[in-house]
């Protein structure tokens, strides 16, 4: 079972590379049981999306 600390590293890395099958399963399982990490993942996703919109460069059709 992943710790929150390990899960958080994967949450960041999934934005940069394709996680292995084992990593994906481990992360999914952890997040299904952990509110904190579930929120952390959403927040990192929002940070990532915000970057796409920063400087007014986002494609409006997105």
């Amino acid at each position, binding site marked *: 079972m992943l710790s*929150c600390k390990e899960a*958080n590293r994967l949450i*960041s890395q999934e*934005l940069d590379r394709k996680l292995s099958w084992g990593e994906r399963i481990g992360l999914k399982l952890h997040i299904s049981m952990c509110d*904190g*990490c579930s929120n*952390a993942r959403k*927040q990192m996703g929002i*940070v990532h999306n915000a970057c796409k919109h920063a*400087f007014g460069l986002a494609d409006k059709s997105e």
Partner: protein
Amino acid sequence: MTIDTSELAALRPDMTRFAYLLLRDSHAVEDVVQATMLTAIEKQDGFKNNSSLKTWIFTILRNKTIDTLRRGKREVSISELSEDDDDLEEVLFNQHGSWNQEMKPKAWGDPEASFEQSEFWTVFNACLHNLPEQTSRVFMMREFLEFEVDDICKELKLSASNCWVTLHRARAKLRLCLDANWFSGQGFQESRR
């Protein structure tokens, strides 16, 4: 087609902020922004109206910034690599790797609505600006210049593990900064009234 120079000048603050987050040197930033504007004026025939002027200018700016980063990479000193909070994870997690109770992330409500508000972007830019120099550079190369992580490591001569840690740290810091200054703070509450 001919570009409107006043429109070009209006883009200058955004160009400056963008280049600064990568270069962190006001002289280098000034040079890059000037060179971009010059290139834009020289090559204005290449600007087709089917893209926005801003998108076109930022393509030039990205390329100029990457060139400058490449030329200046020898100046990136090793001491910058272990920038401050190596212990961010120690603040967030206990010795078992679980969240420290007060650091456990809470739900952010409807964040997409925040993207519509200029106050949110002021906070977001301030949070980006507050990242340490090398952290900011690595993060910007990934998210804004869309480099693959391996290429960032090569360009900046960082070890792979250092690159991954730096990206993770940048995202964690931005998440915490937005939480403190927007989502849990006054900004978001007031914006919802």
